[in-house]
């Protein structure tokens, strides 16, 4: 909010610190000053008033009060003495009726007659402009000026344009209409508070004045309104009609109901000074529940304990007094503090401690380590497995990505997710973020699209949450690799799981359950389920060309998708030390000719099944198709590593086992081991 330095100066006899210096004082003790800039012969301070301090500080007076405490200067607080004209009575000009005292806890009005509407004086126009307001005429300008000065919004009506000299404060009727001062039309609803005359709405309460009783050059009788409206009522209406004004913004933050009278007297006096006229006798004041100051007990030891700095009792009391609080001593270390009604933000001891701390200066608080027993934290296994898995993939050449937790409607169509399985965002920032992601794959594929022109080889993984209807979330680990790399992807999973200490890995053909449509993403013949012991933990395969086309990815891509929660559970259970064999291992190679559709995993599984524990490991080192091979066949070549845990295997034993494996493989008539 913008404040004029000269205007603030006018509250003090003493010269204020220079603008920059003043800004620093305010920043350190009250509110951050975002900017200080020169404006004609003035400076503008852009002050970020904290939302809880709105009630007392959205005004020059409020900032002047802060400055008075910080600089130790007394500020000039005038009491405005009005000269009422005993010949005319306010109640003869206007009759106020408030129908809801919760929505409007106070309504004050004054009447000034025989005014001369015209321009406001230069000094007032300059101050309004410095604060970003446009001067209109002397009556409206006074209302605005006093709002900026005191924080109390005011409104001026032309008294002769109010039907039957009535002002009624009530909730609108559904569908009632109003044209505001800026000639906008609004349709009102029944939870919006309005000011009406005998017939029609003349203002949207606390938000904007209406056109009909507008002050114009012919106006003779001014009816001034200074009221207190319920913050929630104003916020709701302002949001509903999408109209925020200087007034609504102040009412939304709450205002001290005791302020209306001070402000209306100030404005009345200014109008008389500037526009002449007579002040009708009597303040019209609807104020059924007067607000009195709160009292808060404060234990002075608690001040020290919470802030961690010793501030003398004398200083504590001086600080509170300088802020307008009144002190009563109860016991030696306990005081009772009376809080002025304009400090809507102060109601508990901690609020007072904040006042003491900030005025004394938070910079004075020493950095002091707590004295407490150190208890080592429990090991967080989730983080352990995440870091370990991420590390393994990074060692394998992967880059980790963090993608948005959302997918778009277009993505939904491409990946053929049904709306029923997705969590839809009610009020998305943009159409790109319409659904919570049901898989990490869509965004990972987009990563490929973004990068494949610049990088020959792409390997990216992400570890993150996915979401499904109704309200379920799950952590998954997914990765994508560019190129003709189905087997490398498989190898990556082998590597990952082995390093995580899982040995019983199976790749199984995918048999869709009725109603499943996974194959819309995957290439039917080049995909597999990943299983540990017989439990399915994920999926891998080539991404279908149709999907890649839709995403404009012009290269082949393989991907994997692992339920990380399942994996880390199985891993935790399985992570067991296998003693390192003291006995040597031996390697034998095997090459086998199989029909093209046979999966590597089928061959591997056969080898492991036959060799049992003595086959320590099997590595696929070559796949060959075409050329001199018979049509429809492919050649697979493996290293088989033999090792026993309790003895050195003889070469006879190894050869025997190798033979056994060969005959097991050849039981399948279409498989042919090449010697």
């Amino acid at each position, binding site marked *: 909010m913008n404040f004029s330095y000269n205007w603030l100066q006018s509250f003090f006899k003493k010269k204020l610190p220079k603008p920059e210096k003043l800004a620093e004082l305010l920043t350190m003790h009250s509110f951050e000053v975002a900017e200080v800039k020169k404006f004609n012969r003035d400076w503008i301070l852009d002050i970020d008033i904290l939302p809880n301090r709105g009630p007392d500080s959205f005004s020059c007076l409020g900032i002047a009060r802060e400055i008075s405490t910080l600089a130790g200067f007394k500020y000039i607080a005038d009491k405005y003495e009005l000269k009422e004209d005993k010949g005319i009575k306010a109640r003869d000009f206007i009759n106020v009726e408030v129908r809801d005292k919760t929505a409007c806890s106070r309504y004050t009005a004054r009447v000034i007659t025989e005014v001369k509407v015209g321009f406001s004086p230069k000094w007032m126009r300059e101050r309004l402009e410095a604060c970003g307001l446009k001067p209109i005429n002397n009556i409206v300008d006074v209302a605005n000026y006093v709002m900026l000065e005191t924080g109390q919004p005011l409104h001026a009506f032309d008294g002769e344009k109010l039907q039957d000299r009535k002002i009624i404060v009530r909730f609108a009727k559904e569908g009632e209409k109003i044209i505001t001062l800026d000639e906008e039309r609004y349709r009102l609803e029944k939870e919006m508070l309005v000011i009406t005359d005998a017939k029609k709405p003349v203002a949207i309460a606390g938000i904007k004045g209406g056109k009909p009783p507008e002050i114009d050059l012919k106006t003779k009788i001014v009816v001034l309104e200074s009221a207190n409206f319920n913050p929630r009522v104003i916020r709701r209406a302002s949001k509903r009609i999408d109209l925020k004004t200087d007034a609504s913004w102040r009412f939304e933050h709450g205002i001290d109901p005791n302020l209306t009278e001070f402000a209306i007297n100030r404005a009345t006096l200014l109008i008389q000074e500037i526009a002449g006229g007579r002040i009708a006798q009597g303040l019209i004041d609807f104020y059924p529940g007067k607000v009195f100051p709160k009292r808060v007990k404060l234990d002075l030891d608690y001040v020290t304990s919470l802030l961690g700095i010793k501030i003398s009792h004398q200083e504590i009391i001086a600080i509170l007094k300088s802020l307008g609080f009144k002190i009563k001593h109860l016991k030696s270390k306990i005081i009772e503090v009376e809080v002025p009604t304009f400090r809507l933000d102060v109601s508990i001891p901690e609020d007072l401690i904040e006042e003491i701390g900030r005025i004394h200066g938070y*910079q004075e608080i020493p950095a002091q*380590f707590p004295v407490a027993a150190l208890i080592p934290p429990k090991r967080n296994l989730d983080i352990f497995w995440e870091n370990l898995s991420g590390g393994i993939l990074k060692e394998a050449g992967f880059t980790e990505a963090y993608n948005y937790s959302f997918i778009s409607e277009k993505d939904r169509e491409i990946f053929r997710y049904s709306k029923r399985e997705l969590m839809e965002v009610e009020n998305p920032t943009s159409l790109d973020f319409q659904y919570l992601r049901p898989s990490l794959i869509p965004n990972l594929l987009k990563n490929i699209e973004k990068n494949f022109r610049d990088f020959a080889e792409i390997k990216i993984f992400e570890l993150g*949450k996915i979401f499904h209807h109704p309200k379920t979330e799950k952590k998954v680990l997914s990765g994508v690799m560019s190129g003709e790399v189905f087997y490398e992807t498989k190898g990556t999973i082998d590597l990952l799981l082995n390093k995580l200490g899982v040995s019983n890995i199976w790749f199984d053909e995918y048999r869709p359950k009725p109603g499943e449509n996974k194959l819309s993403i995957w290439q039917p013949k080049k995909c597999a389920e990943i299983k540990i012991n017989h439990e399915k933990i994920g999926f891998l395969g080539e991404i279908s060309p149709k999907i890649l086309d839709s995403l404009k990815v012009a290269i082949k891509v393989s991907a994997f998708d692992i339920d990380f929660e399942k994996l880390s559970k199985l891993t935790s259970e399985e992570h067991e030390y296998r003693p390192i064999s003291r006995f040597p291992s031996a390697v034998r190679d095997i090459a086998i000719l199989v029909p093209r559709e046979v999966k590597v995993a089928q061959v591997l599984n056969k080898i492991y099944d036959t060799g049992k524990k003595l086959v320590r490991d099997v590595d696929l080192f070559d796949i060959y198709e075409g050329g001199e091979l018979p049509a429809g066949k492919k050649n697979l070549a493996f290293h088989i590593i033999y090792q026993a845990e309790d003895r050195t295997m003889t070469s006879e034993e190894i050869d025997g086992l190798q033979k056994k494996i060969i005959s097991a493989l050849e039981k399948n008539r279409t498989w042919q081991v090449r010697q």
Partner: protein
Amino acid sequence: MEKNNPPLRIIVPGRVFRREATDASHEINFYHLEGLMIDKDISAANFKAIIQDFYREFFGKPLKIRFIPSFFPFVEPGFQVDISCLNCQGRGCSACQQSGWLEMMGAGMVHPNVLKNSGLNPKFWQGFAFGMGIERLVMMKYKINDIRLFYGGDLRFLKQF
């Protein structure tokens, strides 16, 4: 806090979401790190020591810290925590808009209502809470000028880490 008894020392990192227009310093999802310490006699001075140590370790250089008044409904008093500008050591430069300070996070002493709602008696327990954006920390450490790079999936960016 509801499930455990004090003393409590908690840090919680996690992905958070905001509905706002994105630009170089605003994102719709990012990571936040929230922390909390509750004990019999934990003060703002304790928080200052801990957080100052954290920043010195994280950035690997000596720096100063300051609290300025701020407001968050779940703490009282509330602070904004600033560190002396890493770029100019507090002399004032374009990175800190000539102020010499960088805004790092919001913090404060846990509001008694928060303690009450967690089943703790504010007469016996007190402490501090804080929350900071992780991307912001990383941006400062590596001089990254656009938060959107974190979620853009651009390998030219990602491969540097």
